[in-house]
C-alpha cells in the first residue's frame, strides 16, 4: 500500500519483525504438529518403524469404515435439515419483523449459540432423557404409556447438531437477505411478478451462494465435532471423531489416531474442492 512512504525510514527489518511472531507461532504450533502427525501416522504403534497399516486398517476394518459412513450420513442430514429450518426463519426475521426490532430478534435467536458446547449438549440430554422433559410431558398427558428411547440415539445427535447449526445458518442467511438491494424486488414487482414469483426467481437464486457457504461451514464443523455425538449419541454408533478419541483414550494409539485424523481431513478437503467447483458453476 504505502510502501514508498515507509520503506525509507523503517528499512526492511521492521516489517519482518512485525509479522515474524505470528508466522513463527503458526509454523511451530500448527504446521509442525501437522508434520509430526503425518510422520506418526506412518509408524507402527508397536515398536515403531515405517508402515502403512494405520491407513490400510481404515479400509479393511469394517467398523472404521462404518464410522466414516455414519459421520457422512449424520452430517448430510444435519446440513439439509438445518438449512431447511433456518432459511424460512431468517426470511421472517429479515422481511416480516419490523426494522427496529430486527437487531433484537436476531440477537435473541442466536443467544444460546454462546452457551458452551458441552453444556448445550448436556441441556439436550435433560430434554431427551428417559425421565426428561419430553418423556415426562408425553407420559403425563397420557399420550404414551412407556417413555420413548430418545437419548443415546442418532436422532439425539442430529437434534443437538441441528439446534446449533440452525442458529449459525440463521445468522449467515439473514446477513445474505439483508445485503440484497431492494431495487431487485422493486424491479420484479414492476415487471408484474407477485411475491411468490419474486421470491422463487429473484430472492432465492441470489441468496443461493450464501446458503452454500453456510452449508459448507456446517459440514466442516459438524463432521469434526466430538462432543455432541459422544454426549447425545452415546456409544451405540460411532462417528469419526469418537473413533479418533477412542484410539487415544483407551489404547494410547497415536499413530492410528493420526492416520484417522488425516483421513477425516482429506474427506473435508475433497468436500471443499467439490463444493468450490459447484459454487463456480452456479455463478456462471
Amino acid at each position, binding site marked *: 500500500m504505502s510502501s514508498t512512504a515507509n520503506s525509507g525510514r523503517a528499512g526492511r527489518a521492521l516489517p519482518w519483525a512485525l509479522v515474524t511472531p505470528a508466522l513463527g507461532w*503458526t509454523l511451530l504450533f500448527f504446521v509442525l504438529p501437522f508434520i509430526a502427525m503425518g510422520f506418526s501416522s506412518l509408524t507402527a504403534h508397536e515398536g515403531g518403524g515405517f508402515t502403512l497399516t494405520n491407513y490400510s486398517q481404515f479400509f479393511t476394518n469394517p467398523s472404521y469404515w462404518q464410522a466414516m459412513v455414519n459421520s457422512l450420513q449424520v452430517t448430510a442430514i444435519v446440513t439439509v435439515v438445518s438449512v431447511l429450518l433456518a432459511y424460512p426463519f431468517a426470511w421472517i426475521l429479515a422481511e416480516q419483523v419490523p426494522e427496529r426490532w430486527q437487531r433484537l430478534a436476531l440477537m435473541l435467536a442466536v443467544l444460546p449459540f454462546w452457551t458452551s458446547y458441552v453444556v448445550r449438549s448436556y441441556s439436550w440430554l435433560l430434554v431427551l432423557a428417559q425421565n426428561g422433559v419430553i418423556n415426562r410431558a408425553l407420559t403425563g398427558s397420557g399420550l404414551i404409556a412407556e417413555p420413548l428411547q430418545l437419548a443415546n440415539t442418532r436422532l439425539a445427535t442430529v437434534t443437538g447438531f441441528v439446534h446449533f447449526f440452525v442458529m449459525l445458518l440463521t445468522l449467515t442467511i439473514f446477513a445474505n437477505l439483508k445485503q440484497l438491494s431492494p431495487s431487485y424486488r422493486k424491479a420484479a414487482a414492476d415487471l408484474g411478478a407477485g411475491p411468490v414469483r419474486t421470491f422463487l426467481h429473484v430472492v432465492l437464486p441470489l441468496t443461493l451462494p450464501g446458503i452454500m457457504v453456510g452449508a459448507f461451514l456446517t459440514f466442516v464443523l459438524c463432521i469434526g465435532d466430538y462432543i455432541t455425538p459422544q454426549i447425545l449419541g452415546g456409544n451405540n454408533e460411532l462417528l469419526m*471423531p469418537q473413533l479418533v478419541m477412542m484410539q487415544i483414550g483407551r489404547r494410547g494409539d497415536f499413530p492410528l489416531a493420526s492416520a484417522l485424523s488425516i483421513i477425516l481431513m482429506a474427506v473435508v478437503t475433497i468436500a471443499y474442492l467439490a463444493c468450490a467447483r459447484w459454487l463456480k458453476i452456479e455463478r456462471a
Partner: protein
Amino acid sequence: MRRIVRVASWVYALAVYGFIFLPVVVLVLFSLQATSFPIPPFTGPSLRWYDAVLSDTRLTSALVNSLLVASISSATAVTLGFLSAWGFARFVLPGSGLLRGLITLPLTVSYLIIGMGLLVLFNWAGVPKSLLAAGIGHVVINLPLCFAIIYSQMGDHQINIERAARDLGAPEWKVLLLITVPVMAPAIFAGFFLSMTFSWDEFVISFLLTRFDTTLPVEIWNLLRSGLNPKTNAVGSLVFAVSIVLVVLFELTLLRRRKA
C-alpha cells in the same frame, strides 16, 4: 394472502424460538430446584446447587484456570494478530498473500485435529500436558481470527493519520503506540473478546492437552459421568452467564466502532 403469510410467519418463528430456547430454559430452570435430580416436576426455586458449585474447589479452581487460560491466550493472540496485521497492511512484503493465507489457515481445520497434532508433537518433544500446552493451542485457534478482524479494519483513513505523525517526526514505535493502537482499539477489543469467548468454551484441545489441572469445560465433562445432575445444571448456567457477558461486551465494542 398477506394475512395468512403473517400468521404462518408468527407461528413458525415462535416454534423455532421455542426449539432454540428449550434446552437453555430447561437447564436454567432445573438448576433452581433443590431435589437431587434435575427433572420435572419443578419444585424450586432454590439456590442449593449454586452453593454446591461455589464450594466445590475442583470446579472453582477450574473456573479460575479457564479465566487465566482465556485471558492470557487471548492477549497473546490479539498481540500477535495486531502486529502481523499492521505489518501486512502497511508494508509490501514478498509473498504477502501466501503468508497471510498461512496465518488464517488454522481457521479451516477442526479443533480436534489441531489438538491431535499438538498432542503428537508435545508427546514426541517430551512437553508435559499442562494448562500452558492448552493455552498454546488456544492461541493457534484464535490468532487467525484476531488477525482477520484487525487486518480487515486497517483502512486508508488510518494510514493518513500515521503518515501525519511520521511527518511530524514521530519514530516508528511512537506511531504504533500513540496512533495505531488507539485508532484500532475497537477492532483490537473485538478480537480480544471474541477470542475470550472461544477459549472460554473450548473443550477438545484442553481435554487432550491438560491432565490434573484443567479448564472448566473439561471439569464439566467429568461431571457428566454422573449422568443428570443438578450441579451440572448450576455450573452450566453460570458458564452461560459468563458467555453472555462476553458477548454483550463484544456487541458494545462493535456498536462503538459503528458510531465512531
